[in-house]
């Protein structure tokens, strides 16, 4: 009961703050322009290296990865938390900060959903790829699951960035680039050496993206559901880690005195 309220309240604050992040104009001319050209860029790299099929493969991967990238932006929310001095206040409140962070940056998932869907539609309109219509119909639930998975993964990185504040940009960029590189965005996961391929099993995006690719290739829906189920399990795993990890970060901060009200 309390859990729902904490996550709900935390999410509410996030959404209220989100209004200050972009105006419609800055979102469109800055962020969207960047995302669309990023996806097109990698699509063109695919076109250079392979054929039309390769290009479409890379385009689909990158359009889906957009939501994963945007969900990890929860790290910037943690930076703001620290900048505003609310971070130590959260630590010394009688609520697990990990729980707070399961809700605190959910606005990024919603924003990512919008970006990803829009990029998806634009790419489809521009390049007329040979994707099955089912992708369009079932994209929303798939993207939501992927977004949530990447979000809780990002929440752990946010906890790390609270501790190593100086390296917050490294955590953010490295965090989403790992997903972008190894989880099947540009090349199948099987391309990588076995240990890396195995590790991608427990990373967000991997299974959800496979589900999207199955949809695009008009594969059986039962496969799609199985892959989405795995993605949900991965998300649950990272959510559990988030709950554990924030407590540990907070107690480390208590020990070494890095919790402070001024950043």
């Amino acid at each position, binding site marked *: 009961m*309390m859990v729902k*309220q*904490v996550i709900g*309240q*935390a999410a*509410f*604050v996030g959404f*209220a*703050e989100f*209004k*200050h992040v972009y105006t419609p104009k800055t979102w469109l001319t800055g962020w969207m322009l960047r995302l669309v050209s990023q996806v097109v860029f990698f699509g063109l790299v695919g076109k250079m290296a392979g054929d039309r099929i390769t290009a479409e493969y890379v385009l689909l991967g990158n359009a889906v990865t957009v939501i994963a990238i945007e969900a990890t932006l929860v790290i910037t929310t943690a930076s703001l938390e620290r900048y*505003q*001095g*609310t971070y*130590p*206040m*959260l*630590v*010394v*409140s*009688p*609520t697990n900060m990990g729980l*707070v962070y399961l809700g605190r940056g959910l606005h990024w998932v919603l924003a990512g959903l919008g970006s990803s869907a829009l990029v998806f539609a634009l790419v489809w309109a521009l390049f007329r790829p040979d994707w099955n219509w089912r992708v369009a119909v079932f994209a929303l639930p798939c993207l939501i699951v992927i977004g949530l998975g990447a979000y809780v993964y990002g929440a752990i990185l946010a906890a790390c960035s609270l501790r190593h504040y100086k390296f917050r940009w490294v955590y953010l960029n490295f965090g989403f680039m790992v997903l972008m590189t190894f989880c099947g965005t540009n090349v199948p996961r099987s391309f990588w050496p076995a240990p890396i391929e195995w590790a991608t099993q427990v990373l967000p995006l991997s299974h959800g993206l496979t589900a999207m690719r199955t949809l695009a290739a008009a594969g059986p829906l039962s496969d799609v559901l199985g892959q989405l189920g795995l993605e949900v399990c991965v998300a649950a795993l990272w959510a559990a880690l988030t709950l554990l990890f924030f407590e540990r970060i907070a107690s480390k901060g*208590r*020990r*070494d*005195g890095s*919790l402070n*009200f*001024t*950043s």
Partner: protein
Amino acid sequence: MIEVTGLGRVFVKKGRQAKRAKQSGPTAQDSRVVALDSVNLSVPEGETHGVLGPNGAGKTTLVRILSTMLLPTSGRALVAGHDVTTEADQVRRRIGIVFGGDNGLYTRITARQNLVFWATMYRVDASVVKRRSQELLERVGLADRADEPVEGFSRGMRQRLHLARGLIGDPAVLFLDEPTMGMDPLATRDFRDLVHELKAEGRTILITTHDMSEAEALCDRVSLVDHGSILVTEPTATIGRMLSGHDRIDVTLREDQSPLLSELAGLPQVERVDKLSEPGSVRIHTVSADANPVVLRWLLDAGIDALRTGRPTLEEVYVHLVGNRGLTV
């Protein structure tokens, strides 16, 4: 309500910081900084206790430990009957924290939204959250501006919101760390009135400050802190006895009266005479309380009528023990 025994905190500085600390002087040894050194303190329920000292004395370290933001490296601290190290969660449910300064609020949301958020964090029952937020907003005088984003608030308004935030969990113990820092005099007065009300409700309040008038206005007892240790803990009303058990006499001499000064210093009832900052003003320290009437009569007989008697103030005790560092009056 607060029991502190042998509490200590040592910070270990790393890398470049340590190098700098070593260069800064012989006191900084081995890159270890003792912020708090075996502090003992007992604050009974309902008391408003002031912790006074210059910046870097250890006041904030003490509050950070008591509010579970920092672990001690030695000793023990109980707040509301629970150990801050082993039962942090129990402590957290029973305390409220108010820190001075602009930080610690979500500035992009409204005052009411801030309170509702923190109420949830403090596990206030959902059915009471709304009512309690409204009550607190009224209490701190923010009801009219409750639905405006905090970023437009003045320093004083933010500080009152901080106080409301600290009270949201209905705490038994309240920590106020430099609460009126940077506030204008009017806002400060309002804020102090609020603290008086809280005191009347029987809450235990620990307040750190380097403002003497604040400590005198609010605190039942004060502790003077310097270099990580408590120098003295005394009731605010009688702390002057530390320096002298009896009144001193301040007099202002006219220019033609100045020859009397040496005569005055020579009286057997006078211990010593100190010059005050105002020209012609001196402070007479007598040898005992009985000596005062004698000296007073002598002064009147000599035609000196610009005189005043009084006990040593908190400020004088502070200056005597700590020096002039970090003093605001």
